[in-house]
């Protein structure tokens, strides 16, 4: 099922990379000017490259925008000020910063300086002290904007990898929480971390994921969404096979169910895999609510999704071909509302869906304050005007608005998009062949979903292969005493979540 992607490592490219690395290998000169020149050459003499001479034979080299000024002043400059210049070892001992190294290899030194290290070069020594004091630019932790919920933690990931990892570690305080780091992107050198819980996560899946990430040969990685698309089982399918979330609680819940998580530096969305189709429609809030309420919310969401995908096509199909199925009570209002409309129902429906999508897209692109106004004004003004002008029927307007509303109940934005866009081909099919077209689309989607896998696990799990308890737990939210096992999709090493017996100890 794995489709060969253009950015997968090929043999030819690897050799090229190796050659460039070979060229850079070299030792550091003990001469001060020569060293400065070589650094300037290697970094292409950027404007923010700072070279400071503390004393005649001690030179500080760093990139201004990458290092933390406070640390530099308080811990490096201050402690070097009155010390006699000695060997690099003595300087290293005198500096009070945690991450400090000595290296004699030029390649290492250049990597260190672009990562935010200060280089301390002592004349006459071919070793350089690397004091790592990178500037940690990050936004403060805020509520997750795209996945808000009423009951539950109000904290979301931000764009900093170490903050995100620490958030996860705060939730799961366990030595079993494994964290593997990779660097991706030939030009961006982005840090990527795989997180999983040893003893729960399936070994084979970890290997597969590791393999997929290390096999990637790309020049840049800006966001985790791109990474998710690259390591998906089938990147061509419109359905995402891995979940993107910005909720640490959801992320940790996934890990505890035996899933694997991927965090990317510079991206506030974390990847969770393997993920089944049905899990995209579950919200973390379902776990926090009482099971009856959560069940109702889930059923509401599922009916909303069915409605969202099939309501407009059914309208189009019924009005274009199958007028027989319309009950007498609807017949007159339906035909009268369409009396002024000059277009066939397909075109009418597509036009309205297009307007709704336009409003959504405009709302998403515009700044928040204007966006809301556009949404309301645009919706009301265009809607009423369209009906009065006789371009659409007001009943269809209700249907389209309803299905748009319903599509937004999907907790995952990525899946919500798919649900919304999948409607267009179905409307067209319904406009051409009525219910036969809708059924054709339904069968096609069903087969397509059956063919998909998520990290090798069946995408339609637990419906296919069928697991009764899993099925029940995904359509409704079962009470806690009934969900003692982890879902099958992750093939967990340790299946039991907790002891079945008393979740609430009996009154004693």
């Amino acid at each position, binding site marked *: 099922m794995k*489709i060969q992607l253009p950015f997968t490592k090929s043999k030819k490219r690897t050799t090229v990379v190796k050659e460039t690395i070979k060229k850079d290998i070299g030792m550091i000169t003990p001469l001060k000017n020569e060293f400065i020149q070589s650094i300037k050459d290697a970094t292409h003499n950027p404007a923010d490259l700072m070279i400071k001479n503390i004393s005649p034979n001690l030179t500080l080299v760093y990139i201004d925008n990458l290092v933390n000024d406070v640390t530099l002043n308080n811990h490096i400059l201050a402690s070097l000020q009155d010390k006699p210049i000695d060997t690099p070892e003595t300087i290293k001992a005198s500096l009070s910063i945690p991450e400090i190294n000595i290296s004699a290899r030029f390649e290492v030194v250049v990597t260190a300086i672009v990562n935010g290290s200060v280089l301390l070069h002592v004349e006459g020594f071919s070793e350089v002290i690397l004091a790592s004091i990178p500037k940690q630019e990050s936004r403060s932790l805020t509520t997750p904007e795209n996945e808000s919920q009423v009951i539950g933690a109000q904290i979301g990931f931000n764009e900093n990898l170490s903050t995100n990892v620490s958030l996860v570690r705060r939730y799961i305080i366990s030595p079993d929480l494994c964290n593997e780091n990779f660097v991706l992107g030939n030009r961006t050198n982005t840090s990527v971390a795989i997180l999983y819980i040893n003893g729960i996560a399936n070994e084979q899946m970890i290997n597969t994921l590791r393999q997929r990430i290390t096999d990637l040969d790309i020049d840049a990685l800006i966001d985790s969404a791109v990474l998710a698309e690259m390591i998906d089982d*089938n990147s*061509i*399918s419109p359905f995402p096979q891995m979940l993107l979330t910005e909720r640490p609680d959801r992320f940790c819940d996934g890990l505890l169910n035996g899933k694997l998580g991927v965090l990317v530096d510079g991206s506030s969305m974390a990847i969770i895999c393997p993920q089944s189709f049905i899990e995209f429609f579950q919200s973390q809030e379902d776990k926090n609510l009482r099971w009856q309420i959560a069940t109702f919310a889930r059923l509401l969401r599922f009916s909303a999704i069915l409605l969202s995908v099939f309501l407009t096509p059914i309208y189009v199909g*019924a*009005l*274009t*071909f*199958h*007028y*027989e199925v*319309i009950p*007498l009570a609807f*017949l*007159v209002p*339906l*035909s*009268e509302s*369409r*009396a*002024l*409309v000059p277009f*066939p*129902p397909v075109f009418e429906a597509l036009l309205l869906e297009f307007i709704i999508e336009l409003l959504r897209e405009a709302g998403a692109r515009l700044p928040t304050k204007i966006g809301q106004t556009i949404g309301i004004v645009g919706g009301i003004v265009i809607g009423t005007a369209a009906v009065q002008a*006789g371009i659409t029927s007001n009943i269809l307007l209700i249907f389209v608005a309803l299905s748009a509303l319903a599509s937004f109940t999907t907790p995952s934005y990525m899946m919500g998009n798919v649900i919304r866009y999948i409607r267009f081909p179905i409307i*067209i*099919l319904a406009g*051409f*062949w*009525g219910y036969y077209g809708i059924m054709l689309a339904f069968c*096609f989607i069903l087969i*397509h979903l059956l063919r998909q896998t998520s990290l090798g696990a069946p995408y339609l799990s637990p419906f296919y292969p069928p697991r009764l308890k899993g099925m029940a737990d995904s359509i409704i939210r079962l009470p806690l005493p009934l969900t003692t096992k982890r879902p099958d999709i992750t093939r967990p090493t340790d299946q039991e979540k907790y002891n079945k017996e008393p979740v609430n100890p009996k009154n004693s």
Partner: protein
Amino acid sequence: MKTLSFYIILLFIVSLLAGCVQTNILDKVGLVTLVGYDVGTEEKISTTAVVREVNPEFQSNVQVITTENKTSKGNRMKTNRKLSKKIMVGQMRVILLSEELAKDNIHHYIETNLENATVSNSLYLAVVEGQMAPLLEYKYNNIEDVGQHIYRLLQQNIEQEHMISSTLHEIAHDMYMAGDDIAMPIIKKDEELVGIAGIALFKEDKMVGRLSAEDSFFVKLIRDNFKSGIYETVLQKDNVPSDLLKNKPNEISLAFDAIRSKRDIKLVNPTTPEFDLNLKVKAQILEIVPDVNMDDPKKVAKLEKAISKNLTSDIIRIIDYGKSIESDVFGFGEKYRSSVRGSNLTKEKWHELYKNMKVNVKVDFVIMRNGVFE
């Protein structure tokens, strides 16, 4: 590896090539809601169709068009020539047959509608007293859409169990059944109103007799089970039990609702044939004039007995009428077929037997309660 996009592209190409199915867009078709068949003056069949159309100026209007032709399909084409929109029969709710036509033969009209897949099996059939065109073409003061009006009229009466059910399926069922005959309501124009005037009884596919609308209660009682019917009757002086009231009244008027009935037919003697018809009727008293003290169980029992007797005589009267016109709308024949092994019943064979049929009627009437005010 054949990729998904390949299939999508292929599907789209195919769809674009073949996008040529005839559409029936709701507002571009004229929907026939009612069709009436009558005997034509010049040609064989005269068809009156009630067509509902939608157009931007009038929102929606109803047209009644009468055409004459040799076949009903030919009439449909003729009607089409008179309308701006093509007519479709998928929303047809009622088929009316004129009395004259019904007395001739209705077989063809039922069959042609059964063959058409778009015609619903749940539409109602009825016989019209007199001519078809005047009933449908008349501009009623309070009826905007005569097609929908007649449909609702029939639907309401059938659902309230005032009238026997006459859906196309049931009519066809009875028509093709050896031991059953067709019965359907009769509709009549009454000044500014359209109303149900009685029941038409058929022998095979010819209308041979009629009963009044009031008698439909008894027909339904013999044919079917009531779930919640209503019934009113008058006990004549002879039938009134002597010690029910102090001064014996000339007659007692009674009205019942929430009637539940259960009919049970048994074939006692296959040669005659002889049937036992047991009816269990439970009802709630709605009205009783003059007032009878219902606290006394003895009096209630007497009253029940009197009503049973009254019902029995009515039922015998109805069955006798059916026998006299050789129309078995009650389904005795079906009971005969299902009770006699190897009967190989046909309509002709049954009608021969039916003439000499004997029925022992036994009615068991129970008064359940008498409202909330005693």
